[in-house]
């Protein structure tokens, strides 16, 4: 390339290689000229010049390297200067176009904020490790009998686990609800009885005082407690002198020895007080009551093979210790995090997917906004190109604009996320462990920034690429409307609109299915009448009610007193109500089967007063219910449910047959058989949609004495009150106080409340998904409005021409609506196809509703189509009201 101008000045820079070879070439030429002038021949001169220069190659290389370094040093400030300029331009652009800026920023902020909020939850629940050293070594230990998991008995814990060799520490835990009395206040608190190793399995420095040692875990020396910070603050006003003081727990005095910080909640049960479990020697030999949760901290360097081998040895030990209780019983472990997390991954996956769809719609809207802007910026960019900005430079500037937009939106988005997290934490009904720890920490912040950058590239890169392609002359001449790239932009706009419609439909269908599922849950028949049923619990103190006869009398007395309250139609007492906490199960042996543990049927025990099944409104399908006739000393009877009847006596009538359970026969030989006097229809005791179990009902007058310890003397009072059950609470309390003084009623709820509580996870899921669905619809509608407004705007002149040529207002209206309707129909069709596949994700959360439920699909689609068409109404009407003369004059 030859340039004729005499000076290029300092602004022209050749490439480094050219620079160096050029300079050396010049030098040689000059040298040759001078040598020739001194008298050498041209060839001699050239040879001499080369000789004098020295090592051409090396010198060249050195100079080239130096030149590159020089350029690097000099260009760095220039490069930064360029980026700073781009950012300044971008901010100025946003400032000068507030409508565009506000819409884009708010849309994107909503998307980023919602996604970040949900991610904070995922981070707290699934990603953050437990607050203990090396949490991956923490395991939950249980026993499996024929594939069914169960808790561990004290005997099995002592013989099996305490003697195992792969653990650094193990702990047995039993939870119960206890009355805590200090000088003036009495409260019912959730307590955990723990073995000495508990604070070794979960090491954390106490706030005050100390934790248990082995010495405390011995009967007689076990009257010490550790408080939680929450309880300490609430009951003792965070007074540090509480260490050493005595409190009364369910009648016995205990000394407070320590306080644990609020972050100490190893199993997310939120217990507030810890006491030593202090097994007696007798207890340590009992292998058949499986009530303990057991946790362990594995040694640092054990292999899976070593763990398996050690557990197998432990399982062998317990079978040897008590073959009857432990036949076919094996120990098994799983990571503690698995236990705590439960089914949260399924639910959180759905939340994440839903919010990701919302984010996609938001990005689609912003992309559309940028495309609409692109047409009007055609001229500006063309001028810049003419002034020498390379294509890369223009792309870089447009991408910087997108990044600046994303950065501003992230700022607002983080505020939205903070509010969102607070809302989630306060409204989520405690069904996901550790959700209350969700917060905007470092990880979440990094996620938000990365997300924003990704979005900026997604919606910014393509418009930037296409805009920079426009050639200079056509760009300058046609500033804006009617240009070729404008038309292509419109096609993309419509395409984006169709995509948004599809995505929003998928969201809506998901929400619709969840709503249907919740409705089905509420309508489900549980096998009894849940309305008008008052329930409450009371715990008889062990010292005054040691004698079972006394308990039976108290129950009878209580029933009579409550029955006398006006408004009560029936009363009963039970050890566990449907959807109530607690409960026990026993192995039942139908008569006729060999006395072998492998023939036992695991069934849930209910100790009941007469009239229980009638009060519930359950239906007896064979025989009779339990009555006052079933007294102590009389024929031992039980009522079973259909499921148990089918398992124990398949194909036969169970009434009159006998089943053994719960105790040895009075003569000491063999099991104690009870006669089945009735069969009741199955009751969904866990709540709608949950699995059923075999159940059996024993009269309170006839249960073995130990049974009262099994249920910790805690009973439910069940009262049928047609109308408003809770209105009689005070009177029932009075009756209770009169019958069993010093035994407060707690957990007072109607059965309907218990039912709602059992569904609260699904209800929350549905609410959240509905909110996200609504957000998606609103954003999509705004998007549709924007696209249609742009569409109409671009065609103003064309509409003017048509109207001038005789088109009526309704013709114009039809033209606009037809364009919209095609897009909407396409979008909905794609959306329906997508939802067939996407709603499979919801299957685990749906009750009685198929993921492809046609009714929901049709309803939702129709609703959405109407909303979408409504969104096109304003632009369509504006199109129809175009004044032809103005339109034609406009340019």
């Amino acid at each position, binding site marked *: 390339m030859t340039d004729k101008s*005499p*000076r*290029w*000045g*300092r602004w*022209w820079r*050749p490439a480094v290689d050219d*620079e160096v070879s*050029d*300079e*050396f070439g*010049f*030098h040689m*030429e*000059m*040298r040759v*000229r*001078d040598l020739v002038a001194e008298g050498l021949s041209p060839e001699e001169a050239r040879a001499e010049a080369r000789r*004098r*220069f*020295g*090592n051409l190659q*090396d*010198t060249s290389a*050195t*100079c080239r390297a*130096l*030149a590159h*370094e*020089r350029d690097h*040093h000099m260009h760095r400030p220039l490069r930064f200067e360029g980026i700073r300029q781009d950012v300044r331009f971008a901010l100025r652009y946003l400032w000068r176009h507030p409508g565009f800026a506000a819409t884009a920023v708010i849309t994107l902020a909503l998307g980023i904020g919602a996604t970040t909020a949900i991610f904070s939850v995922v981070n707290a629940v699934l990603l953050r490790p437990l607050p203990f050293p090396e949490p991956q070594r923490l395991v939950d230990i249980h026993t499996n009998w024929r594939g069914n998991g169960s808790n561990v008995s004290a005997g099995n814990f002592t013989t099996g686990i305490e003697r195992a060799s792969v653990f650094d520490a193990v702990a047995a835990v039993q939870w119960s609800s206890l009355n805590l009395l200090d000088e003036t206040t009495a409260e019912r608190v959730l307590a955990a009885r723990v073995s000495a190793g508990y604070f070794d399995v979960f090491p954390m420095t106490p706030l005050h005082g100390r934790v248990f040692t082995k010495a405390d875990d011995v009967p007689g020396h076990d009257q010490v407690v550790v408080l939680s910070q929450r309880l300490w603050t609430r009951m003792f006003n965070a007074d540090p002198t509480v260490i050493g003081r005595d409190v009364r727990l369910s009648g016995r005095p205990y000394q407070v020895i320590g306080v644990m910080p609020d972050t100490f909640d190893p199993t997310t049960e939120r217990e507030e007080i810890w006491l030593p479990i202090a097994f007696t020697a007798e207890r340590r030999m009992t292998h058949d009551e499986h009530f303990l949760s057991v946790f362990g901290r594995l040694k640092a360097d054990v292999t899976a093979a070593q763990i398996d081998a050690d557990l197998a040895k432990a399982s062998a030990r317990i079978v040897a210790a008590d073959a009857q209780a432990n036949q076919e019983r094996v120990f098994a472990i799983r990571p503690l995090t698995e236990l705590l997390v439960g089914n949260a991954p399924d639910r959180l996956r759905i939340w994440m997917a839903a919010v990701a769809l919302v984010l996609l719609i938001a990005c689609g809207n912003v992309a559309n906004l940028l495309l609409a802007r692109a047409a009007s910026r055609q001229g500006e960019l063309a001028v810049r190109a003419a002034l020498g900005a390379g294509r890369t430079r223009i792309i870089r500037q447009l991408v910087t604009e997108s990044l600046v937009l994303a950065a501003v939106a992230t700022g607002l988005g983080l505020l939205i996320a903070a509010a969102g997290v607070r809302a989630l934490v306060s409204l989520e009904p405690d069904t996901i462990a550790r959700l209350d720890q969700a917060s905007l920490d470092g990880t979440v912040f990094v996620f938000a920034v990365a997300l924003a950058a990704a979005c900026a590239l997604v919606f910014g890169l393509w418009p930037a690429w296409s805009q920079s392609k426009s050639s200079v002359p056509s760009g300058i001449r046609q500033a804006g409307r009617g240009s070729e790239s404008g038309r292509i932009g419109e096609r993309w706009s419509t395409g984006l609109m169709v995509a948004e419609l599809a995505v929003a439909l998928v969201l809506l269908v998901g929400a619709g299915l969840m709503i249907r599922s919740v409705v089905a849950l509420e309508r489900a028949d549980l096998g009894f009448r849940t309305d008008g049923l008052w329930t409450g619990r009371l715990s008889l103190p062990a010292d005054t009610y040691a004698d079972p006869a006394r308990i039976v009398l108290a129950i009878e007395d209580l029933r009579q007193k409550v029955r006398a309250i006006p408004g009560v139609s029936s009363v009963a007492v039970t050890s566990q109500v449907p959807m109530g906490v607690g409960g026990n199960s026993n192995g039942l042996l139908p008569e006729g089967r060999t006395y072998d543990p492998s023939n036992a049927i695991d069934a849930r025990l209910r100790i009941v007063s007469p009239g229980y099944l009638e009060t519930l409104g359950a239906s007896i399908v064979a025989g009779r219910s339990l009555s006052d006739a079933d007294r102590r000393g009389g024929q031992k009877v039980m009522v079973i449910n259909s499921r148990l009847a089918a398992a124990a006596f398949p194909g036969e009538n169970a009434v009159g047959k006998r089943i053994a359970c719960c105790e040895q026969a009075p003569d000491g030989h063999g099991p104690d058989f009870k006669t089945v006097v009735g069969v009741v229809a199955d009751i969904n005791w866990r709540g709608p949609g949950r699995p059923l179990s075999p159940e059996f009902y024993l009269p309170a007058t006839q249960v073995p004495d130990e049974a009262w310890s099994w249920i910790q003397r805690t009973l439910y009072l069940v009262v049928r009150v047609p109308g408003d059950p809770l209105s009689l609470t005070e009177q029932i309390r009075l009756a209770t106080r009169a019958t069993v003084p010093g035994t407060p009623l707690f957990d007072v709820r109607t059965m309907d409340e218990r039912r709602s509580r059992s569904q609260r996870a699904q209800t929350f899921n549905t609410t959240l998904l509905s909110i996200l669905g609504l957000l998606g619809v609103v954003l999509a509608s705004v998007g549709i409005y924007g696209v249609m407004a742009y569409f109409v705007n671009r065609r103003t002149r064309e509409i003017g021409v048509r109207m001038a040529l005789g088109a009526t207002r309704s013709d114009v209206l039809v033209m606009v609506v037809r364009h919209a309707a095609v897009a909407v129909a396409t979008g909905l069709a794609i959306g329906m196809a997508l939802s067939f596949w996407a709603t499979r994700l919801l299957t685990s959360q749906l009750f009685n509703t198929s993921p492809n439920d046609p009714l929901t699909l049709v309803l939702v689609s129709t609703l959405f189509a109407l909303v979408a068409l409504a969104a096109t109404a304003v632009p369509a009407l504006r199109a129809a009201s175009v004044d032809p003369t103005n339109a034609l004059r406009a340019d």
Partner: protein
Amino acid sequence: MPDMLHGTLEVLILKTLVQGPRHGYAIARWLEQATDAVVPIEEGSMYPALYRMEKRGWIAAEWGMSELGRRAKVYRITPKGRRQLVSVTEQWAKFSAAVSNVLLKG
């Protein structure tokens, strides 16, 4: 010894350019003549020195028309380079005065 020569070369180049912008060949010729060929200047060391000084900001380059009718890279001294020259000249004066003191006395 090569180090001293190294630094000396750069100072000499700066001194040259104080008198006006020159291209690389002109600098080489001046150096040959000014030191009476006592200090042998190999092109191999001069050009790297020039590039180094350009990188450090003591000299700056432009492209101008040359005697041959083709473009050539022309160097000029920058304010930074002038400052460097002054500072080194002072140091040299101090150094040589001290050495002369020792060598020529007594």
